[in-house]
Protein backbone atom coordinates (compact mmCIF):
# COMPACT_ATOMS: atom_id res chain seq x y z
CA UNK A 1 0.00 0.00 0.00
CA UNK A 2 2.77 2.49 0.87
CA UNK A 3 4.08 2.37 -2.70
CA UNK A 4 0.91 3.97 -4.07
CA UNK A 5 0.60 7.62 -5.00
CA UNK A 6 -1.21 10.04 -2.71
CA UNK A 7 -4.02 10.41 -5.24
CA UNK A 8 -4.53 6.63 -5.36
CA UNK A 9 -4.49 6.50 -1.56
CA UNK A 10 -7.01 9.37 -1.39
CA UNK A 11 -9.32 7.25 -3.57
CA UNK A 12 -8.93 4.24 -1.27
CA UNK A 13 -9.61 6.40 1.79
CA UNK A 14 -12.70 7.98 0.20
CA UNK A 15 -14.13 4.57 -0.74
CA UNK A 16 -13.51 3.26 2.75
CA UNK A 17 -11.14 0.57 1.43
CA UNK A 18 -8.61 1.71 4.01
CA UNK A 19 -8.73 3.93 7.09
CA UNK A 20 -6.39 6.86 7.71
CA UNK A 21 -5.25 5.07 10.86
CA UNK A 22 -4.31 1.91 8.93
CA UNK A 23 -2.53 3.93 6.25
CA UNK A 24 -0.61 5.93 8.85
CA UNK A 25 0.31 2.72 10.67
CA UNK A 26 1.63 1.31 7.37
CA UNK A 27 3.81 4.39 6.84
CA UNK A 28 5.09 4.19 10.42
CA UNK A 29 5.91 0.53 9.84
CA UNK A 30 7.76 1.39 6.61
CA UNK A 31 9.74 3.96 8.59
CA UNK A 32 10.59 1.36 11.25
CA UNK A 33 11.69 -1.12 8.58
CA UNK A 34 13.58 1.18 6.22
CA UNK A 35 14.70 4.30 8.01
CA UNK A 36 17.57 2.62 9.82
CA UNK A 37 19.08 2.23 6.33
CA UNK A 38 18.12 5.53 4.66
CA UNK A 39 17.88 7.87 7.72
CA UNK A 40 15.31 10.23 6.19
CA UNK A 41 13.63 11.27 9.46
CA UNK A 42 15.14 13.17 12.38
CA UNK A 43 11.91 13.02 14.37
CA UNK A 44 8.89 10.73 13.99
CA UNK A 45 5.71 11.76 15.79
CA UNK A 46 4.13 8.28 16.02
CA UNK A 47 1.45 9.07 18.57
CA UNK A 48 0.58 12.45 17.14
CA UNK A 49 0.28 11.03 13.62
CA UNK A 50 -1.97 8.17 14.72
CA UNK A 51 -4.09 10.59 16.73
CA UNK A 52 -4.51 12.92 13.72
CA UNK A 53 -5.39 9.90 11.56
CA UNK A 54 -8.04 8.67 14.00
CA UNK A 55 -9.53 12.18 14.14
CA UNK A 56 -9.84 12.19 10.32
CA UNK A 57 -11.44 8.74 10.36
CA UNK A 58 -13.94 9.95 12.97
CA UNK A 59 -14.75 13.02 10.89
CA UNK A 60 -15.29 10.86 7.82
CA UNK A 61 -17.48 8.46 9.77
CA UNK A 62 -19.82 11.18 10.93
CA UNK A 63 -20.02 12.66 7.43
CA UNK A 64 -18.23 15.95 8.24
CA UNK A 65 -16.61 17.95 5.45
CA UNK A 66 -13.02 16.78 4.83
CA UNK A 67 -10.00 18.62 3.51
CA UNK A 68 -8.26 17.75 0.20
CA UNK A 69 -5.48 15.78 1.95
CA UNK A 70 -7.78 13.96 4.38
CA UNK A 71 -5.87 11.11 5.99
CA UNK A 72 -2.80 11.40 3.74
CA UNK A 73 0.51 11.17 5.60
CA UNK A 74 3.02 13.95 4.90
CA UNK A 75 6.69 14.31 5.92
CA UNK A 76 7.95 17.83 6.68
CA UNK A 77 11.49 19.17 6.27
CA UNK A 78 12.89 20.10 9.67
CA UNK A 79 13.37 23.74 8.68
CA UNK A 80 9.59 24.36 8.84
CA UNK A 81 8.22 25.23 12.27
CA UNK A 82 5.83 22.76 13.90
CA UNK A 83 4.24 23.97 17.13
CA UNK A 84 5.15 21.73 20.05
CA UNK A 85 7.35 19.48 17.90
CA UNK A 86 11.15 19.77 17.64
CA UNK A 87 12.45 21.91 14.76
CA UNK A 88 16.22 21.67 14.57
CA UNK A 89 17.26 22.73 11.03
CA UNK A 90 19.62 19.74 11.45
CA UNK A 91 21.78 22.09 13.52
CA UNK A 92 23.20 21.65 16.99
CA UNK A 93 22.38 25.28 17.67
CA UNK A 94 18.64 24.44 17.57
CA UNK A 95 18.95 20.98 19.15
CA UNK A 96 16.33 21.67 21.82
CA UNK A 97 14.22 24.23 19.97
CA UNK A 98 10.45 23.70 20.04
CA UNK A 99 8.61 26.41 18.09
CA UNK A 100 5.62 28.13 19.68
CA UNK A 101 3.78 28.29 16.33
CA UNK A 102 3.26 26.43 13.04
CA UNK A 103 4.68 27.54 9.71
CA UNK A 104 1.93 28.73 7.35
CA UNK A 105 2.35 25.61 5.18
CA UNK A 106 2.02 23.37 8.26
CA UNK A 107 -1.21 25.17 9.20
CA UNK A 108 -2.38 24.57 5.61
CA UNK A 109 -1.59 20.84 5.91
CA UNK A 110 -3.56 20.63 9.15
CA UNK A 111 -6.51 22.53 7.68
CA UNK A 112 -6.45 20.08 4.75
CA UNK A 113 -6.73 17.16 7.25
CA UNK A 114 -3.30 15.77 6.37
CA UNK A 115 -1.45 13.56 8.85
CA UNK A 116 2.00 14.90 9.74
CA UNK A 117 4.36 11.94 10.25
CA UNK A 118 7.40 13.83 11.45
CA UNK A 119 10.39 15.92 10.48
CA UNK A 120 13.00 15.07 7.88
CA UNK A 121 16.75 15.51 7.67
CA UNK A 122 18.47 18.26 5.70
CA UNK A 123 21.78 19.97 5.22
CA UNK A 124 22.16 22.23 8.28
CA UNK A 125 20.01 25.33 7.73
CA UNK A 126 19.33 24.04 4.19
CA UNK A 127 22.93 24.82 3.18
CA UNK A 128 24.16 22.02 0.99
CA UNK A 129 23.52 19.79 -2.00
CA UNK A 130 23.88 16.32 -0.50
CA UNK A 131 22.29 16.28 3.00
CA UNK A 132 25.74 15.35 4.35
CA UNK A 133 25.93 18.67 6.25
CA UNK A 134 23.35 17.57 8.85
CA UNK A 135 24.65 17.72 12.43
CA UNK A 136 22.71 14.53 13.22
CA UNK A 137 22.88 11.92 10.46
CA UNK A 138 23.67 11.20 6.82
CA UNK A 139 20.64 10.41 4.68
CA UNK A 140 21.19 7.76 2.02
CA UNK A 141 19.80 7.40 -1.48
CA UNK A 142 17.32 4.48 -1.54
CA UNK A 143 18.48 3.53 -5.07
CA UNK A 144 22.05 3.01 -3.81
CA UNK A 145 22.78 3.32 -0.11
CA UNK A 146 26.41 4.28 -0.80
CA UNK A 147 25.25 7.45 -2.54
CA UNK A 148 23.88 10.81 -1.46
CA UNK A 149 20.20 11.65 -2.02
CA UNK A 150 20.91 15.24 -3.07
CA UNK A 151 20.10 18.19 -0.87
CA UNK A 152 19.30 20.12 0.98
CA UNK A 153 15.82 18.55 1.29
CA UNK A 154 17.30 15.03 1.09
CA UNK A 155 15.26 13.66 3.99
CA UNK A 156 11.94 14.69 2.45
CA UNK A 157 12.89 13.34 -0.99
CA UNK A 158 14.00 10.02 0.51
CA UNK A 159 10.87 9.73 2.68
CA UNK A 160 8.83 9.75 -0.54
CA UNK A 161 11.26 7.75 -2.72
CA UNK A 162 11.58 5.03 -0.04
CA UNK A 163 7.77 4.94 0.31
CA UNK A 164 7.81 6.00 3.95
CA UNK A 165 5.45 8.89 3.16
CA UNK A 166 3.42 9.48 -0.02
CA UNK A 167 3.96 13.26 0.18
CA UNK A 168 6.57 15.58 1.63
CA UNK A 169 7.42 19.26 1.91
CA UNK A 170 10.90 20.62 1.22
CA UNK A 171 12.36 24.04 0.65
CA UNK A 172 14.31 25.27 -2.36
CA UNK A 173 16.81 28.15 -2.14
CA UNK A 174 19.16 27.08 -4.95
CA UNK A 175 17.75 23.72 -6.03
CA UNK A 176 17.11 22.03 -2.69
CA UNK A 177 13.80 20.47 -3.80
CA UNK A 178 14.59 19.77 -7.46
CA UNK A 179 18.07 18.29 -6.96
CA UNK A 180 17.05 15.58 -4.45
CA UNK A 181 13.87 14.89 -6.45
CA UNK A 182 16.05 14.29 -9.51
CA UNK A 183 18.58 12.08 -7.72
CA UNK A 184 15.86 10.05 -5.95
CA UNK A 185 13.58 9.51 -8.97
CA UNK A 186 10.54 11.48 -7.81
CA UNK A 187 8.79 14.74 -8.68
CA UNK A 188 9.68 17.99 -6.91
CA UNK A 189 8.60 21.55 -7.61
CA UNK A 190 10.00 24.95 -6.73
CA UNK A 191 7.13 27.42 -6.92
CA UNK A 192 7.49 30.98 -8.13
CA UNK A 193 8.96 33.25 -5.46
CA UNK A 194 5.91 34.55 -3.58
CA UNK A 195 3.55 31.69 -4.54
CA UNK A 196 3.83 30.07 -1.09
CA UNK A 197 4.14 31.85 2.26
CA UNK A 198 7.51 31.66 4.01
CA UNK A 199 5.99 32.34 7.44
CA UNK A 200 7.56 29.85 9.84
CA UNK A 201 10.15 28.71 7.30
CA UNK A 202 13.40 29.30 9.16
CA UNK A 203 15.20 31.78 6.92
CA UNK A 204 18.35 31.10 4.91
CA UNK A 205 18.24 33.35 1.83
CA UNK A 206 15.04 35.34 2.14
CA UNK A 207 14.87 36.56 -1.47
CA UNK A 208 15.42 33.00 -2.75
CA UNK A 209 13.69 30.59 -0.32
CA UNK A 210 10.44 28.87 -1.33
CA UNK A 211 8.59 25.89 0.13
CA UNK A 212 8.01 23.15 -2.44
CA UNK A 213 6.15 19.81 -2.68
CA UNK A 214 7.50 16.29 -3.35
CA UNK A 215 5.45 13.35 -4.67
CA UNK A 216 5.69 10.21 -6.77
CA UNK A 217 3.95 11.87 -9.72
CA UNK A 218 2.93 15.24 -11.09
CA UNK A 219 -0.64 14.91 -9.82
CA UNK A 220 0.51 14.48 -6.22
CA UNK A 221 2.75 17.52 -6.49
CA UNK A 222 -0.12 19.55 -8.01
CA UNK A 223 -2.38 18.45 -5.14
CA UNK A 224 0.11 19.48 -2.49
CA UNK A 225 0.94 22.80 -4.20
CA UNK A 226 -2.75 23.63 -4.48
CA UNK A 227 -3.01 23.05 -0.71
CA UNK A 228 -0.06 25.17 0.43
CA UNK A 229 -0.11 28.06 -2.09
CA UNK A 230 -1.89 31.36 -1.63
CA UNK A 231 -1.81 34.66 0.14
CA UNK A 232 -0.72 35.00 3.75
CA UNK A 233 -0.56 38.47 5.28
CA UNK A 234 2.21 37.29 7.62
CA UNK A 235 4.68 37.13 4.71
CA UNK A 236 4.75 40.46 2.89
CA UNK A 237 6.48 38.83 -0.11
CA UNK A 238 3.67 36.30 -0.51
CA UNK A 239 1.69 37.24 -3.61
CA UNK A 240 -1.98 38.13 -3.30
CA UNK A 241 -3.12 36.19 -6.38
CA UNK A 242 -5.71 33.43 -6.77
CA UNK A 243 -4.45 29.82 -6.71
CA UNK A 244 -5.53 27.87 -9.81
CA UNK A 245 -7.03 24.40 -9.29
CA UNK A 246 -3.90 22.70 -10.63
CA UNK A 247 -5.29 19.15 -10.32
CA UNK A 248 -8.35 20.03 -12.40
CA UNK A 249 -6.47 21.02 -15.56
CA UNK A 250 -3.53 18.65 -15.22
CA UNK A 251 -4.62 16.18 -17.92
CA UNK A 252 -5.07 18.87 -20.59
CA UNK A 253 -2.00 18.86 -22.84
CA UNK A 254 -0.60 22.29 -23.73
CA UNK A 255 -1.26 22.85 -27.45
CA UNK A 256 0.42 24.43 -29.28
CA UNK A 257 3.54 23.91 -27.19
CA UNK A 258 6.88 25.60 -27.77
CA UNK A 259 9.78 24.43 -25.61
CA UNK A 260 13.02 26.35 -25.29
CA UNK A 261 16.32 24.49 -25.33
CA UNK A 262 19.22 26.50 -23.91
CA UNK A 263 22.73 25.59 -24.99
CA UNK A 264 23.94 26.76 -21.56
CA UNK A 265 22.03 23.88 -19.93
CA UNK A 266 24.11 21.32 -21.83
CA UNK A 267 27.49 22.62 -20.74
CA UNK A 268 30.82 20.90 -20.16
CA UNK A 269 30.60 18.58 -17.17
CA UNK A 270 27.17 17.22 -18.13
CA UNK A 271 27.21 13.44 -17.70
CA UNK A 272 26.72 11.51 -20.96
CA UNK A 273 23.86 9.37 -19.67
CA UNK A 274 22.05 12.43 -18.28
CA UNK A 275 22.52 14.16 -21.64
CA UNK A 276 21.03 11.13 -23.46
CA UNK A 277 18.04 10.85 -21.11
CA UNK A 278 17.23 14.55 -21.44
CA UNK A 279 17.54 14.43 -25.23
CA UNK A 280 15.20 11.43 -25.23
CA UNK A 281 12.71 13.56 -23.28
CA UNK A 282 12.99 16.29 -25.92
CA UNK A 283 12.09 13.65 -28.54
CA UNK A 284 9.07 12.61 -26.47
CA UNK A 285 7.80 16.18 -26.50
CA UNK A 286 8.43 16.45 -30.26
CA UNK A 287 6.43 13.26 -30.78
CA UNK A 288 3.60 14.93 -28.86
CA UNK A 289 3.63 17.86 -31.27
CA UNK A 290 5.86 20.29 -29.38
CA UNK A 291 8.06 22.67 -31.28
CA UNK A 292 11.63 22.99 -29.95
CA UNK A 293 13.35 26.34 -30.28
CA UNK A 294 16.83 27.43 -29.28
CA UNK A 295 16.88 30.02 -26.54
CA UNK A 296 19.85 31.80 -25.05
CA UNK A 297 20.57 32.29 -21.36
CA UNK A 298 24.01 33.84 -21.73
CA UNK A 299 24.52 34.72 -18.06
CA UNK A 300 23.90 31.15 -16.81
CA UNK A 301 27.64 30.48 -16.35
CA UNK A 302 27.68 33.25 -13.72
CA UNK A 303 24.70 31.93 -11.75
CA UNK A 304 26.67 29.97 -9.14
CA UNK A 305 29.03 32.84 -8.37
CA UNK A 306 26.07 35.21 -8.13
CA UNK A 307 24.15 32.84 -5.88
CA UNK A 308 26.99 32.21 -3.47
CA UNK A 309 27.30 35.95 -2.86
CA UNK A 310 23.59 36.80 -2.66
CA UNK A 311 22.56 33.74 -0.63
CA UNK A 312 25.46 33.96 1.81
CA UNK A 313 24.99 37.70 2.32
CA UNK A 314 21.35 37.08 3.20
CA UNK A 315 22.33 34.12 5.38
CA UNK A 316 24.91 36.11 7.33
CA UNK A 317 22.18 38.57 8.20
CA UNK A 318 19.42 35.99 8.85
CA UNK A 319 21.60 33.80 11.07
CA UNK A 320 22.61 36.75 13.26
CA UNK A 321 19.53 35.86 15.34
CA UNK A 322 21.34 32.84 16.84
CA UNK A 323 22.97 34.85 19.58
CA UNK A 324 22.63 32.57 22.60
CA UNK A 325 20.03 34.93 24.08
CA UNK A 326 16.58 34.33 22.64
CA UNK A 327 16.63 30.66 21.72
CA UNK A 328 19.08 27.95 20.78
CA UNK A 329 22.43 26.96 22.21
CA UNK A 330 24.29 29.08 24.76
CA UNK A 331 27.91 28.26 25.59
CA UNK A 332 28.49 27.03 29.15
CA UNK A 333 31.43 29.33 29.88
CA UNK A 334 32.27 32.81 28.56
CA UNK A 335 33.92 36.02 29.69
CA UNK A 336 31.35 38.63 28.59
CA UNK A 337 28.30 39.21 26.39
CA UNK A 338 30.11 39.31 23.03
CA UNK A 339 32.22 36.31 23.98
CA UNK A 340 29.03 34.45 24.89
CA UNK A 341 27.60 35.09 21.42
CA UNK A 342 30.84 34.19 19.61
CA UNK A 343 31.30 30.96 21.57
CA UNK A 344 27.67 29.91 21.32
CA UNK A 345 27.78 30.33 17.55
CA UNK A 346 31.21 28.73 17.22
CA UNK A 347 29.99 25.65 19.13
CA UNK A 348 26.53 25.51 17.58
CA UNK A 349 27.12 25.94 13.85
CA UNK A 350 28.66 23.32 11.55
CA UNK A 351 31.47 23.89 9.03
CA UNK A 352 29.35 24.76 5.97
CA UNK A 353 27.16 27.20 7.89
CA UNK A 354 30.25 28.93 9.29
CA UNK A 355 31.76 29.08 5.79
CA UNK A 356 28.64 30.72 4.35
CA UNK A 357 28.26 33.19 7.24
CA UNK A 358 31.91 34.18 6.75
CA UNK A 359 31.59 34.56 2.97
CA UNK A 360 28.38 36.58 3.31
CA UNK A 361 29.81 38.79 6.04
CA UNK A 362 32.86 39.47 3.87
CA UNK A 363 30.70 40.25 0.80
CA UNK A 364 28.72 42.80 2.84
CA UNK A 365 31.65 44.32 4.72
CA UNK A 366 32.83 47.87 4.31
CA UNK A 367 35.12 48.20 1.29
CA UNK A 368 33.89 44.98 -0.36
CA UNK A 369 30.12 45.39 -0.65
CA UNK A 370 30.30 47.12 -4.07
CA UNK A 371 32.68 44.59 -5.59
CA UNK A 372 30.82 41.54 -4.26
CA UNK A 373 27.26 41.93 -3.04
CA UNK A 374 26.13 44.79 -5.29
CA UNK A 375 27.97 43.37 -8.29
CA UNK A 376 26.17 40.05 -7.74
CA UNK A 377 22.79 41.82 -7.55
CA UNK A 378 23.47 43.46 -10.92
CA UNK A 379 24.39 40.16 -12.53
CA UNK A 380 21.26 38.73 -10.90
CA UNK A 381 19.18 41.21 -12.90
CA UNK A 382 20.94 40.16 -16.10
CA UNK A 383 20.10 36.51 -15.29
CA UNK A 384 16.45 37.45 -14.78
CA UNK A 385 16.44 39.48 -18.01
CA UNK A 386 17.73 36.41 -19.89
CA UNK A 387 14.72 34.41 -18.68
CA UNK A 388 12.24 37.19 -19.49
CA UNK A 389 13.61 37.30 -23.01
CA UNK A 390 13.56 33.50 -23.38
CA UNK A 391 9.98 33.16 -22.12
CA UNK A 392 8.84 35.61 -24.79
CA UNK A 393 9.74 32.87 -27.29
CA UNK A 394 8.59 29.68 -25.56
CA UNK A 395 6.14 28.23 -23.04
CA UNK A 396 8.85 26.60 -20.94
CA UNK A 397 12.58 25.82 -20.95
CA UNK A 398 13.69 22.22 -20.69
CA UNK A 399 16.99 20.64 -19.65
CA UNK A 400 18.65 18.48 -17.01
CA UNK A 401 18.05 19.07 -13.29
CA UNK A 402 21.49 17.88 -12.19
CA UNK A 403 24.74 17.53 -14.13
CA UNK A 404 25.28 13.94 -12.93
CA UNK A 405 23.32 11.17 -11.18
CA UNK A 406 23.82 10.79 -7.41
CA UNK A 407 27.48 10.83 -6.34
CA UNK A 408 29.10 8.80 -3.57
CA UNK A 409 28.82 9.78 0.09
CA UNK A 410 31.97 11.67 1.09
CA UNK A 411 33.05 12.33 -2.49
CA UNK A 412 32.74 16.14 -2.33
CA UNK A 413 32.76 17.01 1.38
CA UNK A 414 36.34 18.28 1.31
CA UNK A 415 35.78 20.48 -1.73
CA UNK A 416 32.98 23.03 -1.19
CA UNK A 417 33.27 24.47 -4.71
CA UNK A 418 32.79 21.07 -6.35
CA UNK A 419 29.72 20.60 -4.15
CA UNK A 420 28.35 24.03 -5.16
CA UNK A 421 28.60 23.03 -8.84
CA UNK A 422 25.91 20.34 -8.27
CA UNK A 423 23.42 23.23 -8.35
CA UNK A 424 24.59 24.59 -11.70
CA UNK A 425 21.26 24.00 -13.49
CA UNK A 426 18.87 24.73 -10.64
CA UNK A 427 20.26 27.89 -9.10
CA UNK A 428 19.28 30.45 -11.74
CA UNK A 429 15.55 29.75 -11.21
CA UNK A 430 15.88 31.00 -7.63
CA UNK A 431 17.83 34.09 -8.64
CA UNK A 432 15.14 34.92 -11.22
CA UNK A 433 12.26 33.88 -8.95
CA UNK A 434 10.63 31.66 -11.60
CA UNK A 435 8.83 28.31 -11.27
CA UNK A 436 10.61 25.01 -12.00
CA UNK A 437 9.93 21.30 -11.65
CA UNK A 438 12.04 18.14 -11.74
CA UNK A 439 10.45 14.93 -13.04
CA UNK A 440 11.98 11.47 -13.58
CA UNK A 441 13.20 10.88 -17.15
CA UNK A 442 15.21 7.68 -16.97
CA UNK A 443 17.93 5.74 -15.20
CA UNK A 444 21.68 5.40 -15.65
CA UNK A 445 23.07 1.97 -16.56
CA UNK A 446 23.90 1.47 -12.90
CA UNK A 447 20.28 2.08 -11.95
CA UNK A 448 20.44 5.67 -10.68
CA UNK A 449 17.51 8.02 -11.42
CA UNK A 450 17.89 10.93 -13.83
CA UNK A 451 15.72 14.06 -13.63
CA UNK A 452 14.34 16.41 -16.26
CA UNK A 453 13.99 20.05 -15.30
CA UNK A 454 11.27 22.22 -16.80
CA UNK A 455 11.27 25.95 -16.05
CA UNK A 456 8.41 28.37 -16.60
CA UNK A 457 7.67 32.06 -16.19
CA UNK A 458 6.60 33.45 -12.80
CA UNK A 459 3.17 32.15 -11.70
CA UNK A 460 2.94 29.77 -14.69
CA UNK A 461 2.73 26.67 -12.44
CA UNK A 462 -0.54 25.57 -14.02
CA UNK A 463 1.04 25.34 -17.47
CA UNK A 464 4.27 23.91 -16.03
CA UNK A 465 2.43 21.02 -14.36
CA UNK A 466 0.45 20.24 -17.54
CA UNK A 467 3.66 20.17 -19.58
CA UNK A 468 5.32 17.88 -17.01
CA UNK A 469 2.29 15.59 -17.01
CA UNK A 470 2.48 15.19 -20.84
CA UNK A 471 5.94 13.60 -20.52
CA UNK A 472 5.05 11.53 -17.47
CA UNK A 473 1.92 10.07 -19.09
CA UNK A 474 3.87 9.12 -22.20
CA UNK A 475 6.88 7.54 -20.48
CA UNK A 476 5.90 6.18 -17.06
CA UNK A 477 9.33 6.76 -15.48
CA UNK A 478 7.55 7.91 -12.31
CA UNK A 479 6.17 4.44 -11.59
CA UNK A 480 9.55 2.88 -10.64
CA UNK A 481 10.24 2.27 -6.94
CA UNK A 482 13.52 1.25 -5.28
CA UNK A 483 13.66 -2.30 -3.89
CA UNK A 484 13.87 -3.02 -0.19
CA UNK A 485 14.78 -6.38 1.25
Amino acid at each position, binding site marked *: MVERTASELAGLLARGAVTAEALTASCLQAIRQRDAAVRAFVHVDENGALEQARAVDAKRKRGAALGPLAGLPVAVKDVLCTAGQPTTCASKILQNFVPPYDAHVVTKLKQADAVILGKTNLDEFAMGSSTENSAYQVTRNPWDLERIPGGSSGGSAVAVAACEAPLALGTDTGGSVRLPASLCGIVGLKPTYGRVSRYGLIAYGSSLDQVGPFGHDVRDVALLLETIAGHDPRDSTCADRPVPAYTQTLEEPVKPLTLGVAREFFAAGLDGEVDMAVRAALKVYESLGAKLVDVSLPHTPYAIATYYLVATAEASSNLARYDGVHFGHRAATFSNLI*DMTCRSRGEGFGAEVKRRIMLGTYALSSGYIDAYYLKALKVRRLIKNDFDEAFSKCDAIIGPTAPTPAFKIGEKVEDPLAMYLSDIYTISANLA*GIAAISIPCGFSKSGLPIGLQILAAPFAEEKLLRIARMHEKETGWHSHRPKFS
Partner: protein
Amino acid sequence: MSLSQDQVRWVAHLARLELTDAEFDIMTRQLGAILDYVNQLQQVNTDGIAPLAHPLDIQNVFRADEPAPSLPVDAALANAPERRDNFYSVPAVLE
Protein backbone atom coordinates in the same frame (compact mmCIF):
# COMPACT_ATOMS: atom_id res chain seq x y z
CA MET B 1 42.59 35.91 -4.47
CA SER B 2 44.25 35.16 -1.19
CA LEU B 3 42.97 36.40 2.11
CA SER B 4 45.27 37.02 5.03
CA GLN B 5 44.64 35.35 8.39
CA ASP B 6 44.11 38.85 9.81
CA GLN B 7 41.34 39.55 7.30
CA VAL B 8 39.68 36.25 8.14
CA ARG B 9 39.95 37.03 11.85
CA TRP B 10 38.35 40.43 11.27
CA VAL B 11 35.45 38.87 9.32
CA ALA B 12 34.97 36.26 12.07
CA HIS B 13 34.80 39.09 14.58
CA LEU B 14 32.18 40.91 12.48
CA ALA B 15 30.21 37.66 12.19
CA ARG B 16 30.54 36.98 15.95
CA LEU B 17 31.98 33.54 15.29
CA GLU B 18 34.59 31.94 17.49
CA LEU B 19 36.81 29.72 15.36
CA THR B 20 39.61 27.40 16.41
CA ASP B 21 43.09 27.84 14.93
CA ALA B 22 42.51 24.78 12.77
CA GLU B 23 39.24 26.28 11.54
CA PHE B 24 41.02 29.55 10.70
CA ASP B 25 43.55 27.67 8.56
CA ILE B 26 40.89 25.80 6.60
CA MET B 27 38.63 28.85 6.34
CA THR B 28 41.43 31.06 5.01
CA ARG B 29 42.23 28.52 2.29
CA GLN B 30 38.60 27.76 1.35
CA LEU B 31 37.38 31.37 1.35
CA GLY B 32 40.31 32.28 -0.89
CA ALA B 33 39.34 29.56 -3.39
CA ILE B 34 35.68 30.59 -3.33
CA LEU B 35 36.60 34.27 -3.84
CA ASP B 36 38.77 33.28 -6.80
CA TYR B 37 35.73 31.57 -8.27
CA VAL B 38 33.25 34.40 -7.64
CA ASN B 39 35.70 36.96 -9.04
CA GLN B 40 34.59 35.83 -12.51
CA LEU B 41 31.65 38.23 -12.00
CA GLN B 42 34.09 41.09 -12.58
CA GLN B 43 34.16 40.03 -16.25
CA VAL B 44 30.48 40.87 -16.66
CA ASN B 45 29.67 44.34 -17.92
CA THR B 46 27.01 45.70 -15.57
CA ASP B 47 27.23 49.38 -16.54
CA GLY B 48 23.82 50.96 -16.14
CA ILE B 49 22.27 47.78 -14.66
CA ALA B 50 20.25 48.32 -11.49
CA PRO B 51 20.83 45.80 -8.67
CA LEU B 52 18.03 43.24 -8.26
CA ALA B 53 17.62 42.53 -4.56
CA HIS B 54 14.33 40.75 -4.93
CA PRO B 55 12.70 38.88 -7.84
CA LEU B 56 9.16 40.19 -7.36
CA ASP B 57 8.26 43.62 -8.57
CA ILE B 58 6.50 44.58 -5.34
CA GLN B 59 6.74 47.67 -3.21
CA ASN B 60 5.97 48.07 0.47
CA VAL B 61 2.92 46.18 1.61
CA PHE B 62 0.73 48.02 4.08
CA ARG B 63 -1.97 46.82 6.43
CA ALA B 64 -4.29 48.46 8.90
CA ASP B 65 -2.63 49.17 12.24
CA GLU B 66 -4.98 47.10 14.38
CA PRO B 67 -4.14 45.52 17.72
CA ALA B 68 -4.14 41.73 17.69
CA PRO B 69 -3.02 39.06 20.16
CA SER B 70 0.71 38.41 20.21
CA LEU B 71 2.78 35.53 21.54
CA PRO B 72 2.24 35.07 25.30
CA VAL B 73 5.34 35.85 27.37
CA ASP B 74 5.81 32.28 28.58
CA ALA B 75 5.64 30.93 25.03
CA ALA B 76 8.15 33.54 23.85
CA LEU B 77 10.54 32.72 26.69
CA ALA B 78 10.09 28.95 26.55
CA ASN B 79 13.18 28.49 24.34
CA ALA B 80 15.37 31.05 26.11
CA PRO B 81 18.67 29.59 27.38
CA GLU B 82 18.17 31.62 30.55
CA ARG B 83 15.30 33.73 31.82
CA ARG B 84 14.63 35.79 34.90
CA ASP B 85 11.01 36.62 35.61
CA ASN B 86 9.55 37.91 32.36
CA PHE B 87 12.90 38.72 30.77
CA TYR B 88 15.73 37.13 28.81
CA SER B 89 18.74 36.92 31.07
CA VAL B 90 22.19 37.93 29.72
CA PRO B 91 25.60 38.64 31.28
CA ALA B 92 26.29 42.26 32.20
CA VAL B 93 26.40 44.50 29.13
CA LEU B 94 28.38 47.27 30.83
CA GLU B 95 31.37 46.15 32.80
